[in-house]
């Protein structure tokens, strides 16, 4: 596992993490990992969930102390005890979930913690403001310093985070999964910004599992797998398939195999659905109408927060409709209780598996029967039939390959995200639904689990079920769906054919730049 062969004489590294090992009880999170970031380069850090990326970054920020290994800054060994040490060394990070104060302006957020204070403890914002504007012009980071965070787009929020790092004169910039929340156009802009920053001498560490983006923007790429260091490659020397094989340790089938489509009857019919928003004082879903037929996967695409969640809440009964009508199998279910909808054949893989999908402190078996515990098989005279519950849970665990520490009695909280999701998918699919509503079913999962869940969803469609898939992932939308509906600000602004459309076209709809003529 040598790193020395990549080192060239006379070359300088901005930061080096050499032979880092960090153990937790029962697991080695980082096993002899070496990461060397050259000055002025964009270096990608690639790995599945649980590969050890977060642990490595926590070590860099002093949140964990490694058992073995050293960290060097500009060739000198440094000791990082806490995040303040990391800041002092010029290391900054844009987190996947932004750390911004919503009700503050862009400028206030940028100076937060390093406020320029004058006499009598008064803030001196004029100076700071000038510097922020200079920085934003220098690197092409367009922001309005006086706009409130709650009023600006996600892309602009991210640029605010980048300016925060630059304002603190950080030299080493870490981007943690920065593209997850962006539209394709915004992703292109971000890539350009990253190139500008690198050209100005900043060193960038780009954490991602999106291969295409790594190939597009990174100079080199280090790959981690299950806590181990797999290697560092020049991106121009490798293909996407090679990178992917390094990441998962085998060849992954990127394309979902689908049988020819046999579309049947209308299963779900939504007419003029309007759902109120809890976040703003208006409607999150505005007068939406569509149909889903048996044997097709209809995908609701869009950027997070454009009414997709509320649409699903309205469909599944978690929120009442302001107006409109929902029909399942030709029957009006607009005001039907959730339990009755579910019994009628509605299955729902919820967006947030921790909030809605699971009772985390229940055992796996109790969660597996969450939608069936009231059926005759599982209780008698009000008493639970634990034997039948165990048998049923064991069957699903076996059939859907749900892995956990102690099988059926494992507390769900102790399971990995992927296996928690598998348990939900198993529970919802095994009920033999007529309509499967799957909301971001692969969020936060690794490539192997994603592949598995896509297969299950497609199998449902092939079996003649109607599937409504809500996804924020462009690749997922294009790969899995038979029909795409794009949502923007609570309305369906376009219907696309995944075989004919391009990511660029979809992006225009998703960003509201384009819409179908009414």
């Amino acid at each position: 596992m040598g790193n020395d062969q990549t080192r060239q004489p006379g070359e300088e590294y901005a930061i080096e993490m050499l032979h880092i090992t960090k153990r937790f009880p029962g697991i080695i999170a980082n096993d002899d990992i070496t990461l060397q970031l050259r000055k002025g380069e964009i270096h990608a850090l690639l790995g599945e969930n649980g590969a050890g990326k977060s642990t490595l970054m926590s070590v860099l920020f002093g949140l964990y102390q490694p058992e073995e290994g050293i960290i060097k800054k500009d060739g000198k060994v440094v000791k990082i005890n806490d995040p303040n040490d990391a800041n002092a060394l010029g290391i900054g990070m844009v987190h996947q979930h932004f750390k911004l104060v919503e009700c503050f302006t862009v400028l206030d957020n940028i100076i937060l913690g390093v406020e320029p204070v004058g006499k009598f403890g008064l803030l001196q914002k004029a100076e700071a403001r000038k510097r922020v504007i200079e920085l934003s012009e220098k690197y092409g980071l367009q922001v309005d310093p006086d706009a409130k965070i709650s009023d600006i787009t996600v892309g602009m929020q991210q640029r605010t985070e980048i300016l925060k790092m630059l304002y603190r004169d950080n030299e080493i910039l870490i981007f943690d999964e920065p593209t997850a929340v962006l539209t394709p156009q915004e992703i292109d802009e971000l890539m350009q910004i990253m190139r500008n920053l690198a050209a100005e001498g900043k060193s960038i560490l780009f954490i991602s599992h999106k291969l295409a983006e790594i190939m597009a923007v990174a100079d080199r790429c280090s790959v981690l797998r299950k806590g181990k260091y797999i290697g560092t490659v020049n991106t121009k020397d490798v293909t996407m398939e090679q990178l992917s094989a390094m990441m998962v340790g085998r060849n992954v089938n990127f394309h979902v195999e689908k049988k020819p489509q046999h579309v049947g009857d209308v299963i779900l019919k939504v007419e003029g659905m309007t759902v109120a928003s809890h976040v703003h004082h208006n409607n999150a879903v505005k007068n939406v109408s569509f149909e889903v037929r048996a044997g097709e996967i209809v995908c609701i695409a869009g950027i997070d927060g454009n009414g997709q969640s509320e649409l699903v809440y309205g469909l599944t009964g978690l929120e009442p409709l302001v107006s409109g009508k929902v029909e399942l199998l030709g029957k009006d279910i607009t005001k039907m209780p959730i339990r009755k909808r579910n019994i009628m054949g509605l299955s729902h893989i919820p967006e947030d598996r921790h909030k809605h999908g699971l009772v985390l402190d229940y055992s796996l078996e109790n969660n597996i029967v969450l939608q069936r515990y009231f059926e005759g098989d599982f209780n008698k005279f009000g008493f639970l039939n634990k034997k039948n519950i165990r048998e049923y849970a064991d069957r699903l665990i076996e059939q859907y390959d749900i892995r956990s520490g102690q099988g059926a009695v494992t507390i769900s909280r102790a399971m990995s995200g992927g296996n928690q999701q598998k348990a939900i998918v198993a529970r919802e699919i095994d009920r033999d639904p007529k309509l499967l509503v799957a909301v971001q079913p692969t969020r936060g999962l690794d490539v192997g689990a994603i592949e598995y869940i896509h297969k299950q969803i497609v199998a449902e469609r092939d079996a003649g079920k109607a599937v409504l898939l809500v996804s924020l992932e462009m690749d997922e939308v294009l790969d899995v769906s038979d029909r795409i509906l794009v949502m923007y600000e609570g309305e369906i602004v376009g219907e696309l054919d995944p075989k004919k459309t391009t990511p660029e076209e979809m992006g225009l709809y998703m960003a509201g730049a384009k819409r179908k003529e009414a």
Partner: protein
Amino acid sequence: MRNKDSILRKPAVQSLLTSLLCILLGLLVGFVVLLIINPAGAGEAIMDIIKNFLNYSKPATRLKNMGNTLVKTAPLLMCSLSVLFAYKVGLFNIGAAGQYVAGAGACIYCAVGLGWSWLPCMIMAVLAGALVGALSGALKAYRNVNEVISCIMLNWISLYLVNTILSQVKNPTSPYTYEITKKVVMENGAMTTVAHPGAVLPQLGINGLFNNNKYVGLAIPLAILLAVGIWVLLTKTKLGYELRATGLNMYAAKYCGMQDRSNIVLTMAIAGGLAGIGAAMLYLTGFEEWSCTQSSVPAMGFNGIAAAFLGGLHPLGAIFSSFFIQHITDGGAQLNKQVYPSEISNLISSLIIYFCGFVLFFKLTLTKWLNGRNEKKNAAKGGSAK
């Protein structure tokens, strides 16, 4: 990672250990207070409290006094079940006190005022407690009123309402109601009483075991039975499954079609009913009468919170913790009143209760300590881990 210390990680073992630790710390601080008041007799005094009825030399007196402790354990157990049942469903029932008061008012009025026999009196106590509980539950479920706030307010409402109602059956020569063995009748326009033994809980011969302590009877086995019943309800039944799911994650409960709102009302009604029957278990023995002039909510309901936590929030654990708390409370009466105020036992039980607040902290510390030990072990193994 299966080490031999893993038995310390078992929740039941951790609960037991931490509860014992709370008791020890409580007694220790209580002892320190006794030392400060009067160092000479402190050691003896703390032993007196711990020994309670064992202070008496005659076995017969011991048994009789143990019976008295048990008589007050039954209502305490009911209040702690009330608290822990609601707690398992994610609600903090600080209103057990008020529900207990409502139960007391209902059963005393039905017995002394209306001359009913014990069973309907007890049922009325359950219903009155359940009604007060359900009120808090409904306010929470349909109006999103925090149950702690509504419970505290209902505690006072119940107290003064019950004081007012029970003034109808008050002994004119004292602040107390008439004994439970009497009933009020009107004779020539004046209030007087006649004997009415039917309202007293049956003794079932259990009193014989406690040197004919006439207050000992049905209440004690019934309380234990109910504790087991609550345990079964929570862990073995469909309703318990639903209620616990609602308590642990109301969003998931709603998602899978459980009636989250009516579950909250039902939970509080059951909790209230438990506190209500607790009151019936005490006042229908005739052990004490209601003081119609009391201006503080009886401590029974609040002690129930302590007993619930000390018992590790387990219905069967509550049986033992209730007995223990009652035991040392009664033990306070054994002190030499000239040297120590008898409130010292209240102080100790409140100290224990106070330390119970750290139960979670103790558990976390224990787990952390175990983790730390493991990590050290692993580090010592070093390279062999690879």
